[in-house]
């Protein structure tokens, strides 16, 4: 990289970098077949490092779907999917993605068709079934990376990691079969180092929510997490989060908060309601409240140990993502965030789209309320389909919750 380019890059903000990296990534993905490269669809939490090291371009139907849902295309795309016989109970990502494939409508100009699919079920069972549909449609092979629930028994955990490592070897053999190219383990070591560093800076960025006032809200985390999802394992990803951390640190040093007069620091359970993103931020802001974090955004806070066999550290990190942990462990993870970020309330979203996360919410709420003594609001809706979002009811409940926080604070004072 020339000195001039480097200088230009250093002057770029994280926001500019994000746009540049996203455009370059999508451009690469769309022209992959022209470049003689393979495209692999993969789930957001999956050992994508194995693709990067083998020059296969990973593409994330979830990310594409989230972009469509944020642009409020959820209902239109879902209706197209439902007309093909799928039910409206399915995950909105899947409905939106299948709708895109029927209508060709996209918020991002579409994504290329897959040559290979990898479904890691640490996130959910749904993704595997959705990818089965895509595998049938494109006649492309599907590899299921099966991650048994990360139960607390140490002996079981050792065996789970062994099983996962064995599967990663099977995956590598499948990729060699796809490309006809021998796998380069030295290249994998390089990629792992980039992933380790990017994850370090991403986690550091998220942890800046511990500052008072917090320079970031969860809405910042949701915007900035995209790069680590699809560019893990690249030097650009490391640079991006290093730049972002420097920017956010500067804000923290100046005492600039994500909201003015920060009074309430909240925890969010589940994925966001993508199409209500800004509305929620503004409503909370008007009460001096902000959501700082969730287990969801921490799903990419990996801690790769590059001193280990790369397949072992990949297995350990991907199998232990919060959505694959027991409820007890998940509660411990959330409690850790409560403590580290000084949180004083929770908004707990029961998301019709996401059974993997939502079916634990009622029990999780009971545990968090018992252990932290902080109030929590549960509401049901859908992350991407406005037909299941009851505007007035949810707004009223959020307002009542925020007023309760205010009243509690006044009484406490």
């Amino acid at each position, binding site marked *: 990289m020339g000195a001039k380019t480097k200088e230009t890059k250093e002057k770029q903000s994280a926001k500019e970098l994000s746009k540049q990296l996203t455009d370059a990534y999508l451009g690469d993905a769309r022209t992959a077949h022209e470049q003689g490269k393979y495209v692999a669809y993969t789930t957001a939490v999956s050992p994508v490092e194995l693709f990067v090291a083998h020059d296969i371009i990973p593409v994330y139907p979830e990310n594409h779907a989230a972009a469509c849902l944020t642009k409020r295309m959820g209902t239109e795309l879902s209706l197209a999917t439902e007309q093909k*016989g799928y039910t409206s109970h399915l995950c909105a990502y*899947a409905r939106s993605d299948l709708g895109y494939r029927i209508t060709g409508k996209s918020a991002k100009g579409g994504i290329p068709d897959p040559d290979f699919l990898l479904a890691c079920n640490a996130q959910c069972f749904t993704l595997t*079934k959705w990818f089965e549909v895509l595998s049938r449609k494109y006649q492309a092979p599907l590899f299921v990376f099966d991650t048994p629930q990360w139960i607390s028994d140490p002996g079981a955990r050792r065996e789970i990691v062994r099983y996962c490592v064995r599967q990663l070897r*099977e995956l590598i053999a499948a990729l060699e079969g796809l490309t006809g190219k021998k796998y380069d383990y030295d290249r994998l070591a390089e990629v792992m180092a980039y992933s380790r560093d990017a994850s370090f800076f991403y986690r550091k960025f998220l942890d800046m929510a511990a500052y008072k006032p917090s320079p970031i809200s969860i809405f910042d985390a949701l915007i900035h997490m995209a790069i680590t999802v699809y560019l893990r394992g690249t030097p650009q990803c490391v640079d991006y989060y290093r730049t972002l951390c420097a920017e956010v640190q500067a804000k923290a040093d100046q005492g600039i908060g994500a909201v003015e007069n920060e009074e309430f620091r909240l925890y969010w359970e589940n994925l966001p309601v993508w199409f209500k993103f800004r509305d929620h931020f503004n409503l909370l802001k008007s009460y001096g409240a902000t959501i700082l974090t969730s287990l969801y955004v921490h799903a990419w806070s990996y801690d790769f140990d590059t001193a280990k066999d790369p397949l072992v550290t990949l297995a350990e990190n991907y199998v232990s993502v919060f959505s694959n942990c027991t409820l*007890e462990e998940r509660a411990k993870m959330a409690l850790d965030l409560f403590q580290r970020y000084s949180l004083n309330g929770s908004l707990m979203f029961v998301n*019709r789209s996401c059974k993997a996360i939502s079916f634990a919410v009622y029990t999780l709420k009971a545990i968090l309320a018992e252990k932290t003594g902080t109030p929590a609001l549960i509401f049901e809706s859908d992350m991407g389909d406005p037909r299941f979002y009851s505007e007035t009811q949810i707004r009223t409940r959020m307002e009542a919750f925020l007023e309760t926080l205010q009243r509690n604070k006044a009484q406490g004072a």
Partner: protein
Amino acid sequence: MKPKALTRLVEIANDPYGCLAGLRKQKQVIGSTLADCPEELIHAAGLHPFLILGTNEPIRHSAALLPDNACSLARSNLELVIGCQGNFFDGFVLAQVCDTTQHLADIWKRKLPHHYFENFLAPRQVARPSARAWYAEECRRLRAALGRYTGREITDEDLWRSFRLYNENRALLRRLYAIKEEAPALMTNREFFDAVKVTFFMDKEEHNCLLKEVVQWAEQEKDRRTDGDGYVKVIMAGIVVEPPSLYDMVDEVRGTIVGDTLCTASRYIYHDVEVEGDPAEALADRHMRKPFFSPINADVERVYTDLLTLYRRKGAAAIVYCHIKYCESQDYDLPDIKAHMREEGIPFLELETEYQSTHLSQMQTRVQAFCESVIKKGAT
């Protein structure tokens, strides 16, 4: 005249949890969930395994713990466990096959902290060698865990005894199924599937005794029955058939179920466990050989090719698919299955049901209309 043993099996099927109360006086009773849990291990530990198959009682307790878009089997199982009927159970070994079952296991563990609890982490892929190895490894872990719980090591001899008993049970049920196919007038669909259902609850030895009587009677009677014509051969597809009155509806239109893909029938009764070698490997071999058993398969077309093969092999006239509402696996598979069957010109009826379904007349009309149209096409 039908034998008393058959009547007894039907009685138990109508009050499945009732028989557990008596058994609990002799043994600890351990529940498991559908399809993947190797019950033989629980039996060999000197415990009584049974399959938690929900309840048709109204949902009262579980609504506060699971949203209404959880499948009714899960909600119903949760209701059963945390409601008063939970008093029949001493513990659980829960196989996790989907997001819902994973959460169910966590919720039960928290709600019933004094009950024995063990996960069985069945592989959720079946195409590669790692799946078989993992299943065997989980069997070894479960064997050790059950041994610790009972305070008695499970010997290989214990396991061979259990394997033989379960193999005998499966063989009797397979034989009865074959006779039913040959002589459809001999027993109703409801009677046959009730006889299978009770295997999930009863003491296996007692079940085998009753089955032997029924099979003996069926062997004697099958050649005497000359009224087998006019039945429409049907494949019953799905996971479970609930409510069981769906079987009655098929009976009413002279449909005879000659094959199925149900967890509560073929997926349970087909294939035995080898009684030699390493017991864990033997259980893994059986798991890998079971037909239609995985909701996930790298060979993604098997969701319909397996069904099509069964349909053709059995010379069936139609497929009835029992779709449990909110079952994600079925929700994703069904549009492609239906499209494929349409392309093949196969009469296919999807019935969407729930455990607490009470308004069945509409469904009955659909079954009647469907069968009439099939019969009009010339099926016999």
